């Protein structure tokens, strides 16, 4: 019972999910969307619905599958032990890479306050490594502390982004939005086609609720709700904020802004407010990195608990923090951050980041399809089965499209990494032989 105070609450987890999703991606989103014009807002219809379908599947999985392991546990339901391992392995890789990239972006945003960070490759490296370790060490306090810090840094998203979604309407001018509709005069279908990739991957991160199932109070209720509410919240805030901003700032200015939220607040109030908003956005970005480092360590811990990652990842401190595993992750990420020093290595790291989106999406498909088995085992009614299957098909179709849209290079790299994962699992598989003697007997006696 005393244990539960160290764990995360529903609010904490919902916050974590929303911040994880929006944290660093939202900062430049209005600019990229404005480059295509307000017509790009229509892409939200596709991407928000698709993402909600996946979030719904994950929350259903969270209801039926109470074993620890998050996406990997859901995967195991349909795809057995190797599925568990491959899912964890791909997802772990994805986060380890993505977190370094988020740190690099965060340092980029900080340069407006600390110009030294932008003065060369070495300052960028130092800033990136500094942030990675700051967010690693901040997680040593355990999930409770992570949730509490998250509850503070989330204001960095709430005030600028969610705040804009509400108060921005007082400055909203429909004619500004109309003028921004389609500045490049593209055919509508082409404009939407170009806009979908801007918002297609904006919801990656919704799964972080499931990954934290080990560290939350009452996971059966908290995880599904946090996944659904977090995704819904992010969708609402995404749509409102990117709409209202295009009705306040004229398109040409917005499309050439490197800090759109700071720009809109400077426009509504004054430049000082704009700077404060930028500082808050950076804080949210760092907060999201904290959340992701937590999720990374949790993923490794849950996999190690199943005997599939080195034992060191599941050693937890008195405060429930897998400190040894976090240190290992920190070292690996520091090595990856070295790539910032040379332009060639940066270009290679950029390819890894694209690959990381692929290794994030494959687990979506394996985990969501686990729901079919879960429903069979739970003997759900035909109505629920049909409803969930429809959502599942929409969600998987969306994931497949998102995978396809990652492009040849990223999918190529991702596939190699996936195949390599099976080699690794080959060495681990013997550990699970004894667990299913019946199957073996059958196989041995035809």
């Amino acid at each position: 019972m005393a244990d539960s105070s160290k764990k995360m609450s529903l609010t904490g987890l919902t916050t974590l999910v929303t911040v994880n999703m929006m944290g660093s991606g939202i900062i430049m989103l209005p600019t990229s969307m404005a480059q295509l014009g307000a017509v790009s807002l229509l892409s939200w219809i596709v991407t928000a619905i698709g993402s909600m379908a996946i979030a719904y599947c994950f929350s259903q999985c969270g209801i039926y599958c109470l074993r620890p392991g998050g996406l990997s546990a859901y995967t195991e339901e349909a795809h057995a032990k190797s599925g568990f391992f491959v899912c964890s392995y791909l997802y772990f890789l994805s986060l380890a890479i993505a977190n370094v990239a988020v740190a690099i972006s965060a340092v980029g945003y900080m340069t407006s306050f600390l110009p030294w960070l932008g003065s060369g490759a070495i300052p960028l490296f130092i800033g990136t490594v500094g942030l990675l370790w700051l967010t690693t060490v901040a997680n040593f306090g355990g999930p409770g502390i992570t949730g509490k810090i998250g509850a503070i840094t989330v204001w960095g998203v709430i005030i600028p982004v969610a705040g804009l979604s509400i108060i921005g309407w007082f400055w909203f001018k429909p004619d500004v939005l109309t003028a921004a509709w389609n500045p490049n005069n593209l055919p509508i279908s082409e404009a939407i086609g170009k806009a979908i990739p801007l918002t297609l991957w904006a919801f990656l991160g919704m799964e972080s609720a499931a990954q934290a199932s080990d560290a939350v109070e009452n996971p059966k209720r908290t995880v599904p709700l946090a996944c659904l509410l977090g995704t819904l919240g992010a969708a609402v805030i995404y749509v409102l904020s990117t709409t209202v901003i295009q009705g306040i700032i004229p398109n040409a200015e917005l499309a050439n802004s490197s800090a759109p939220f700071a720009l809109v607040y400077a426009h509504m109030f004054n430049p000082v407010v704009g700077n404060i908003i930028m500082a808050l956005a950076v804080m949210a970005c760092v907060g999201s990195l904290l959340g992701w480092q937590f999720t990374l360590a949790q993923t490794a811990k849950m996999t190690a608990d199943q005997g599939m990652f080195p034992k060191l990842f599941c050693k937890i401190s008195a405060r429930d923090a897998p400190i040894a595993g976090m240190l290992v992750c920190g070292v690996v990420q520091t090595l990856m951050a070295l790539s910032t020093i040379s332009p060639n290595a940066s270009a290679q790291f950029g390819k890894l980041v694209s690959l990381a989106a692929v290794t994030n999406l494959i687990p979506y498909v394996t985990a969501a399809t686990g729901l079919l088995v879960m429903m069979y085992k739970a003997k759900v009614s035909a109505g629920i089965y049909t409803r969930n299957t429809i959502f599942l098909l929409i969600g998987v179709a969306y994931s497949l499209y998102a995978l396809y849209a990652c492009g040849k290079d990223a999918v190529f790299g991702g596939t190699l990494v996936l195949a390599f994962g099976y080699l690794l699992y080959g060495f681990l598989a013997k550990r699970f032989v004894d667990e299913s003697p019946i199957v073996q007997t059958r196989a041995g006696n035809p």
Partner: protein
Amino acid sequence: MNVKLTKANNLLLVGLLSLVPLLADASTLERVRANNTFTLGYLPNFAPFSAQAGDKANGYAIDLCLKIADKVKTELGLSGLQIRYQPVTANDEMKAVSSGQVDILCTPTPPTLERRKAVSYSVPIYTAGLSAVVRREAPETLLNVLNGKVAHTGPTWRATINHGLVNQTFAATAGGVTEAWIRQQMQLLGVVATLVTVENTDAGLKLVAEGKADVFFAERMMLTNLLSTDHYAGKLVLLERIFEYAPTAMALDRDDENFRLLVDTTLSEMYRSGEIEQAYDHYLGGASDAARKLFKVYAIP
């Protein structure tokens, strides 16, 4: 009575109007004959086209101008014709031509409609290409954009570093066609960029070398020339891509078809005789196949 007066007025008007060209200034050739001097206008810092050399000038365009001077000499029969070199600035170059301060602007400029309101032009003498210089370690996203590719390929998600939209500083020479072109292109290139203008090509290269700008757009030949002689050479690279082509020509007096005919005759003869190609070899590192094709287009038969 009324009718008569109008007729008289008209006659007077016609008489006055016919005097206007003479009053404004005598034609270029008349002026050259009267002063026994042919004045070449040029920008002194425009190597390899025109560059200061002591109290004279040299360069590709100056060589061509000297051929024109020879033609003037023989046409007018002025064996003792003096050549005067008059440096001008980019700001007053067109005024120097329209006011008659110089007889011809040797340094080639693109004939824009705006300029054509003040001056006339020879046949093109060089096809300018807008290109760009970046630092050797320029990020891939920037190179992609400059090469006309999407800044960032692959998924755009939370981990995409700054979404590929890095804030860049672009530099261009002030007031040129280049500046207007970049302003129009920035949106289409899909980058967030600030445009700064510089006084001349040298200053632009310096900005990029010092990291104060990320890209400098300028005429390819001038960039090549500076990069080959300059100490920035190791730090900077010239992009292969040419963004825009613009034929450039020599500006001359707007209302002087006789002089213009003389200039165009000289240049067309030079195109056909291969003298222009020699000048290309000497100053501009040789003529490309594309340039040689254009020689045939530019020469008036």
